[in-house]
């Protein structure tokens, strides 16, 4: 028998008020942006109070907390620095994410104007605007991030599949084999005790990126 060929009449209508409470998402074309505004100087104050303990005074990130500013031009380097200024394609994502998920541990505590001000300040930290800049629902769509065009759709089917669908070698595939790298040399795998794990963490700080 078919799985529900026609509606079952389950659930109830969502009211506009209910939708407004939960529907906070913002798109690159500005759909979902609430009315409001905020300037760089106000953003500086809020950021210093609510953000800088983790993200650093200049958006440089403390410890392993995310870096928010800098790294422009580093994306093809051996160790790229991916920030709002160097990597993120859309400013709408900054507004949306700060509004929905930050500060870490006290999400959805900022007013619309506070999120505009913090977003303006993050543009300033990334050298995208001057210190007198005011961001608002009116001029939001004009503010673009530098890396917007440096994304492409998933092209694995075109770039990889032909090579990876060849019948592989089964016998006498190579004359010899050598070990070229060993995990034990790096030695950053956790041991069972917290003390050992802490010691490894020191060594590993510079080793590798986070698995985000």
């Amino acid at each position: 028998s078919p799985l529900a060929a026609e509606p079952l009449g389950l659930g109830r209508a969502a009211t506009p008020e209910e939708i407004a409470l939960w529907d906070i998402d913002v798109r690159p074309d500005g759909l979902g942006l609430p009315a409001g505004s905020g300037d760089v100087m106000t953003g500086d104050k809020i950021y210093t109070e609510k953000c800088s303990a983790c993200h650093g005074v200049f958006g440089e990130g403390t410890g392993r907390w995310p870096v928010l500013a800098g790294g422009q031009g580093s994306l093809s380097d051996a160790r790229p620095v991916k920030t709002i200024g160097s990597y993120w394609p859309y400013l709408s994502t900054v507004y949306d994410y700060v509004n929905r998920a930050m500060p870490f541990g006290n999400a959805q505590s900022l007013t619309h104007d506070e999120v505009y001000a913090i977003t303006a300040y993050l543009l300033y930290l990334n050298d995208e605007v001057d210190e007198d800049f005011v961001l608002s629902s009116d001029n939001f769509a004009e503010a673009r991030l530098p890396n917007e065009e440096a994304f492409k759709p998933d092209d694995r089917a075109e770039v990889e599949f032909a090579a990876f669908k060849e019948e592989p070698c089964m016998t006498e595939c190579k004359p010899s084999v050598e070990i070229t790298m060993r995990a034990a040399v790096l030695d950053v795998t956790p041991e069972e005790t917290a003390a050992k794990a802490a010691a490894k963490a020191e060594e590993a700080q510079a080793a590798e990126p986070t698995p985000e």
Partner: protein
Amino acid sequence: MTDENQTGPSRRAFLTGAGAAAAGTLAGHASAQTDPAIAIHPWMQELGDGVDAAPYGMPSPHEADVKRRTVEWLTADPVSSINFTPLHDLDGTITPNGLCFERHHSGVARVDPAQHRLMIHGLVDKPLVLTMEDLKRFPRQNHVYFLECAANSGMEWRGSQLNGCQFTHGMIHNVMYTGVPLRLVLEEAGVKPEGKWLLAEGADAAAMTRSIPMEKALDDCLVAFKMNGEALRPEQGYPVRLVVPGWEGNMWVKWLRRLEVGDQPWHHREETSKYTDLMADGVARRFTWEMDAKSVITSPSPQAPITHGPGPTVLTGLAWSGRGTIPRVDVTIDGGITWQEARMDGPSTPKALHRFYYDFEWDGKPLLLQSRAHDSTGYVQPTKDALREIRGENSIYHNNGIQTWAVDADGKAENVEIS
């Protein structure tokens, strides 16, 4: 129980290791060849726990090492972090619920199911609010699927780093989900023709959001409330999560509270800053949803060395593909000079873990072990070098390259790369 009324060896004697000798003496066959385990053990004499001792059972204390583990230095905080499934200790294909790896962005949301709602709105005929009771009145389906974090093996892009398949490949689990086809929930609201994208959002403090193309949403996604027969674990999205078969784990939104239908993707943080794959030329792939064919030998492996010496040896591992089934896995024990087809055993369903075995006679010499998965589309798992040649070393996600374990003459295994 006292020593006086015992006919067999005393419990104290067992505890001090003298039990074997005593048992031998009593039996009148004292011999250096007597296995100390061939004895009258306490569990052969004493009463065990009653049926009321463990209303929800736990594994034997002897299995205490079979557990999720984390790598503290990987993330800034344990709340937006990852832990790893102990693949090296498991067999078959189903992951026990308590061992399924966790990945949260703002910790485990403590959701009261009576207070949980799923809202469907946007480009629909009738915006809806569903309770958990409502959801459980839709027709249900059962499917086994793997969920692999996009970052699984991501720490290995620059070379061998973590020594154990739990750490290199353990951001994966495979359970049977019971849930409602997402299509039915969407059809209940009535998707408008211009509704091409779906935004799924979680009820946790991260308010996790991802954009999903409507074609996938209407195809095989589930709104799931059970895993392996019981309610979802809190860390897996209790009371309800999205199941997005074959696609990167980040999209399987937990604690699902909202589905919005739109005409464009939202380009949110988890599909711009994160879960985009930076290529060597500085351009990044976006919307890399499918998880490609992949495999790993789970034993022998660094956490599961060969301890029995030369002779009959069971090599086993897991293979999976986000694009279908795994009809074949090749294994090599000499670093890829010669390959053999492994023996597949267990169920084979699309977008689920598959179990393979290679039973061989170990001669006690060092080994270089690899496995190579073939999926039902004809795709053959590439080497790490083949991936790096195309992508560079900074794409973080989607590392499905062939894993090598070096086994030494003592049976110890290490994560290595080879020429």
